[in-house]
């Protein structure tokens, strides 16, 4: 499709002309498609939240105890980092739309840096938990340990959900590297920025999921046992 795409014209019986929407160059179609894809992310995490809620009703006490032992300082820092990264991502898109490609690229670099920072802090957090004997297939979470069922389930879901969320962050970084390459290649421009738009949308979903993950894991037991 090297040649310029010219949309077709359909004519009705009175001779009125209508521009035909083709699959080429369909900004709204691309946006709609990505929104629909984001629904699937919501349904995926929704199912995990469902499981989480179900087990919380079965083991309310264990859940609060386990939640109390999570590191709220690191988790909270990560929340702030992710919120700022959502802001920088959005600013980058705004800059792209007004034609400031350089500024947009700078914002994407900052977002990537913040995302990497998020992962690093997550790594510190998981290491700390590992040292306390809490990790998948390790010490307290082994089937034969006498750790209460409720806490095992809490931590199991904690590692699953934060792990899958972290996986989305890694994919996000990959997408941003790709986006930068496309910008440098001149394929993403202020006139044609659907890719940038959709990656910004993706990043919004990633931070939105965290906004729910954070209170559900870290905050429910904040005052427990004090």
């Amino acid at each position, binding site marked *: 499709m090297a040649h310029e795409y010219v949309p077709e014209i*359909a004519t009705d019986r009175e001779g009125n002309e209508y521009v035909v*929407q083709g699959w080429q160059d369909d900004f709204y179609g691309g946006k709609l498609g990505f929104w*629909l*894809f984001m629904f699937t992310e919501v*349904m995926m*995490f929704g*199912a995990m939240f469902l*499981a989480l809620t179900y087990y919380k009703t079965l083991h309310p006490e264990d859940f609060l105890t386990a939640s109390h032992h999570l590191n709220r300082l690191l988790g909270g820092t990560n929340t702030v980092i992710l919120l700022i990264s959502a802001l920088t991502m959005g600013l980058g898109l705004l800059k792209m739309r007004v034609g400031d490609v350089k500024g947009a690229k700078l914002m994407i670099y900052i977002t990537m840096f913040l995302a990497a920072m998020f992962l690093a802090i997550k790594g510190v957090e998981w290491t700390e938990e590992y040292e306390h004997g809490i990790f998948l297939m390790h010490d307290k979470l082994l*089937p034969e340990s006498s750790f209460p069922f409720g806490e095992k*389930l809490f931590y199991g879901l904690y590692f699953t959900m934060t792990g899958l969320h972290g996986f989305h962050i890694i994919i996000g970084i990959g997408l941003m590297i790709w986006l930068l390459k496309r910008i440098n290649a001149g394929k993403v421009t202020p006139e044609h920025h659907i890719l940038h738009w959709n990656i910004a949308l993706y990043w919004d979903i990633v931070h939105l999921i965290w906004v729910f993950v954070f209170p559900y894991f870290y905050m429910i037991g904040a005052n427990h046992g004090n």
Partner: protein
Amino acid sequence: MKKTYFDETHCAIGHPKSTFMQWMLTIDHKRIGIMYAVVMMTFFFVAVATAFLMRLELFAPGGQFIDGDTFNQAFTLHGVIMIFLFMVPGIPAIFGNIVMPLMIGAKDVAFPRLNWFTFWLYIVGALFALSTLWTGNGFADTGWTFYAPYSLNTDTSVVMLLVAAFILGMASILTGLNFLVTIHRLRAPGMTFFKMPLFVWGIYATGWIQLLATPVVGITLILALLEKLLGIGIFDPAKGGDPVLFEHLFWIYSHPAVYLMILPAFGVMSEIIPTFSRKEVFGYRTIALSSAAIAGIGYLVWGHHLFTSGMADLAKTVFSFLTFFVAVPTGIKFYDWVATMYGGKIVLRTPMLWALGTIITFVIGGLTGVTITMIGVDIHLQDTYYTVAHFHYAMLGGVAFLMFAGMHYWFPLVTGKMYNEAKAKIAFYIIFIGFNFLWFPMLIAGYLGMPRRYFDYLPEFQIYHQVAFFGAVVFIIGITLMMYVLIQGWRKGEKVGPNPWNATTLEWHLPYSPAPLENHTKVPYVDFDPYEYKNGEPVVKFDYATMKRID
């Protein structure tokens, strides 16, 4: 010589010279649909062969040909192929791809490259699934439902199969997404939602189910996978998990999945009935909206699979009632189709025969479904042959039959040729008779207490198994003949024009047949209803060079 889509294509990457690579890389929706059809029919025959192996074993009580473990693997293989590789992608991937863009006057789907990618994702998923036949500790023996905790404890290759099911689910989501955007964005000017052919409505409703339900089973399978690999304990009672939660999450998808199989099939029916009755469809809006209603209500009925798994009585009652409600929009559709035929000029060509046969088989399948919606009855009939027969009457006698109907209906559109009508009709009758001999005895055997998935049985059930075996032989002869007729039709069939059925929808208004690469010569302006007939003749006529109405 006019160039058809068999002669030229757009490719996802580059401009390959060889025909083979052109097919592998094609982004043309018609070619992709044909490739899906070929692959799926192959899988269909593998699954039928597996089922026949089980029938052979069940011919007499006791073990003859295969042992119990092999039998467990056989029904798992049959289920996995039929559900994940044939029924779920089935009609949307084949006819949704080939016909839907033509019906709405589009040049292709909204994301043609994604469509290409999706096809290969499906192939990768299929290879993953089937590779476990030869790798690991043998094919899974859990049944296609992977119920915990057994699936978590068995040594067979469940892990690989779960990965495969996830990939196939991904392919299904992307197909649905592609079609939803196509229908929203690429309809020809003037075509409002209520001017779309009813098949497009079926695909549209299906797209939403694919999009909203599939991720739930996707994550459920991932959780089961992580459970197996990392021992998280979400579904394993030994680690505090609840296996019933797995059943819930699994059926939140897998029940809507049966509607995502049947809705496009109903769409095929809604195309065939008016065309061969030469009459406008009765109750267009009710058929269209009942598709949406089935999709919506179907999302809320999964609990009826768990009546015997342990659930609150109130929840059971609610799920039971909601399930009854699904029968209402389904009933509306059937009455609409019958009313369409009433007073019409019925032309009994092969596609119409298939549609009429399906009305019989699906009504049996649907009504037996209503009986097991009743909680008390279900407690008696759960996991018996009655349920199995119900399911196969609805799925094989509904979805697969209508897929065959569609294969006969759109055959001239895809190939530009016509199969041997007389032989195709004979094939239909053989299949129809064999099908009923195969499944009706199972309804009775199940009612009398024959449990499903058993490889041995009490001698008093022998007669039912033997009649079913006879039916299976007839059925297999029938589908073999049907495929033979279709393949012969493609090779040597008589050439026919673009509209051999006198049909009205846009896919029949192509300049020549098979279609050119980018479909219609020009996109038409749509100011007419999809099924306008007057005195048995189509009202809307086009000049195919300019796509302007000339009636």
